């Protein structure tokens, strides 16, 4: 048997060890900076960060939020900042992909050493970093998602929600529908995740049952089957737990099918200017006439907050389109500034949380924020907005309720007034 010629074995070991040795030698060593007493705070600046979709399918609906927040921080910084420090807002793109969120949030915490993560956007994305942020005791403030899961002071003491939660929205919208429409057949179209299920829980708490419950997946840009099923079920009043893009898609699809119904949407997908952007200036206003949604932030054209935000938007945001996202982003920025102002001369991660737990931070909504020692729930109530003649504005009462099976009650207090041009007093 002739032996097969082989290459010299002298070089083999190096090959086998190669991969591991490469791993050892290639990874560049970063200069470790010594952490300050409190991360993200120095003499002149406070550094905070966020994860938000700037690219990918969700970007169109949400990328304007972080831009608006940054603009408001610029406005604050030009007016002396908070405790003499300017606020630096690091915005990282996660393309609405939970896997990327993991990476960019670690970058924020470990590389940029932010004081807090503020307004991380999205239920699936933010869920992916909830454990990480609480494990590392990083303040996780004003999550841009209406999932009730942020309100867990026991398990996640470092996390504070922002949006009115979907259960509350569902309950108030259902209550409003009961008061408003006679002999209605109620149906719902919801996103196939917590957004849809929580909102539907809210609906069914008030309405006994729904004639049809449809779901859609963000990765599939076609809702013809769902709208067709709703039409077939004879639905006359349809609730939507949809993001803006799918609200537009649902209304557009229904219009194409010649299906007319009353639509009531969660605030997450009920922003009139954004929806007109999706549907087009020509048919948008007609399709959206009578469209009902919830909101919890100042929205009327003559509201002092809105006037201030418009001014800031023109001056610091290149006059970008003024939408609900603009108000949302700026409100979050204001609320963080207020928190920072209450957190003492030398803010720390702990003092931010203490400030919020004290209940002194009231925000700028139509109801004051509900944070407390054992509450991480921002807005306990919402108002109803309706589109009339191409203008979306509040109608009727503001309602408050809980996330259980408590009643929906009318709120008789005032909205939070604007003071000192939206620059929190320290």
């Amino acid at each position, binding site marked *: 048997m002739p032996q097969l010629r082989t290459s010299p074995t002298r070089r083999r070991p190096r090959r086998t060890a190669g991969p591991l040795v490469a*791993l050892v030698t290639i990874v560049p*060593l970063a200069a470790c900076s010594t952490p300050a007493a409190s991360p993200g705070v120095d003499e002149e600046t406070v550094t905070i960060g966020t994860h938000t979709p700037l690219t990918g399918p969700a970007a169109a609906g949400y990328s304007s939020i972080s831009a608006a927040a940054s603009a408001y921080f610029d406005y604050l910084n030009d007016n002396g900042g908070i405790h003499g420090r300017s606020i630096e807002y690091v915005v990282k793109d996660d393309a609405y992909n939970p896997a990327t969120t*993991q990476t960019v949030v670690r970058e924020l915490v470990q590389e940029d050493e932010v004081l807090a993560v503020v307004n991380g956007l999205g239920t*699936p994305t933010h869920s992916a970093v909830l454990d990480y942020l609480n*494990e590392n005791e990083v303040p996780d403030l004003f999550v841009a998602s209406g999932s009730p899961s942020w309100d867990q002071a026991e398990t996640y003491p470092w996390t504070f929600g922002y949006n009115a939660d979907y259960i509350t929205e569902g309950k108030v919208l259902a209550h409003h529908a009961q008061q408003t429409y006679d002999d209605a057949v109620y149906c719902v179209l919801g996103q196939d995740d917590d957004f849809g299920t929580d909102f539907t829980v809210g609906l069914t708490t008030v309405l006994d049952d729904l004639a049809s419950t449809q779901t859609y997946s963000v990765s*599939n840009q076609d809702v013809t089957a769902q709208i067709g099923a709703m039409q077939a079920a004879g639905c006359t009043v349809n609730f939507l737990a949809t993001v803006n893009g799918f609200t537009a898609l649902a209304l557009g699809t229904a219009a194409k099918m010649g299906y007319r119904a009353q639509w009531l949407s969660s605030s997450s997908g009920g922003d009139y200017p954004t929806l007109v952007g999706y549907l087009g200036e020509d048919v948008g206003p007609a399709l959206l006439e009578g469209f009902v949604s919830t909101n919890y932030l100042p929205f009327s054209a003559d509201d002092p907050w809105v006037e201030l935000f418009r001014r800031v938007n023109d001056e610091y945001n290149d006059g970008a389109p003024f939408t609900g996202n603009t108000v949302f982003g700026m409100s979050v920025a204001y609320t963080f500034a207020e928190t920072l102002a209450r957190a003492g001369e030398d803010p720390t991660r702990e003092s931010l949380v203490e400030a919020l737990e004290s209940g002194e931070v009231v925000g700028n909504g139509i109801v004051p924020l509900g944070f407390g020692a054992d509450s991480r729930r921002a807005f306990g109530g919402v108002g109803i907005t309706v589109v009339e003649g191409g203008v979306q504005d509040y109608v009727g009462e503001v309602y408050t309720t809980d996330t259980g099976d408590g009643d929906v009650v009318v709120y008789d207090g005032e909205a939070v007034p604007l003071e000192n041009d939206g620059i929190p007093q320290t």
Partner: protein
Amino acid sequence: MNARRTLLLALGGLVLAIGLTFLLDPYRNYQLALAAAYLCATAGLTVLVGLSGQLSLGHAALMAAGGYGYALTSQALTSAGVNGVPRFLAATAAAAVAAGVLGLLLGLAGARLHGPYLAGLTLTLVVAVPAVAASVGALQGDRGVRIQFEGVPGPLKALIALEQWQAWVALAVAAVAVTGLALVRDGRTGLRMRAVRDDEVAAALAGIAPARVKVLAFVVSSVTAGLGGAVLTFVTQSVSPGAYTVSLSLLLLVAVVVGGLGSLLGAALGAVLLVLLPWLVGTLTDVLPLPSQVTQRLDGTLALLIFGLLLIVLVAGAPGGLAGALTAARARRRARGRPPAPGRTAARLAPTAGDDPTGPAARPGSVGPTATRSGEPVRTPTEG
């Protein structure tokens, strides 16, 4: 003897890499863990493409199978009250099995397909990942499956940070995967894979069953990809379709080609590039005084562009990839004064002594890699 040396080296390398984690800050350790996870996949892919000549554009889907296998098993065990090491081992085994089964199915189909048809089939698989995740209830659609947070085990808690611990686990799994692949490559199976790759008919005449060898290559490669998915899930405590996209699939392949087809060292270089390039690009765009609009646009895309350019430059200039270029440089240094060997090699390996000298492929007239004057096998291009 050789196998023992491989094992010793792997162990030494692992100890060295674990020592390295003490020099890195937490974020670098996180990146190291990601690189180790991708290494599991690229190493398997380089063996599949380089050794058995089968092209897979669907390795991200196999990673996803591993990731979901890990997550679902881990969830089930958590609710059954099993924790710690047993849970990790069982979930990792489940990941390997899930990916292996999917790889077996792919391999069975793949053995009947060639070139672009196989590439198309595997690509279809990865395109289907989000749809499968959306339509199977347990996989929870776009948000994916989250698992119980697993911190640093008790006794180590005072010593090391979480990221360092995760890097250790990732490196250990990668070491197992790469060592396994090295043993396969240097053993009888690797020899048969090369024989089938170079000439199926001749291999069949020599008593090798080409289909069986090809399927086996697919399964081995899938199992390691599944281990990579398991590590990713372990590190991030979640698995979602967004992590396993078509672009990851293509990037894995690009990483393998850039590193050097058929070379495990190349696979490691590729995996490190896969993690570092997007980060470097992000850092670069932050440093450069660009308008924020431009930065936004470059953020996700510039890394892909650089990868593409790198691929073109390398294929044109150094077909053996980075590892091939290193080997060639070494060979040139050694061969100073002697005429260079015709046909540069990537680190594609000739069978070694001590393994299978009397196997079917060793019979006269069999097709082994042809020996050149310098004892290096001639490189045959593997075109997908």
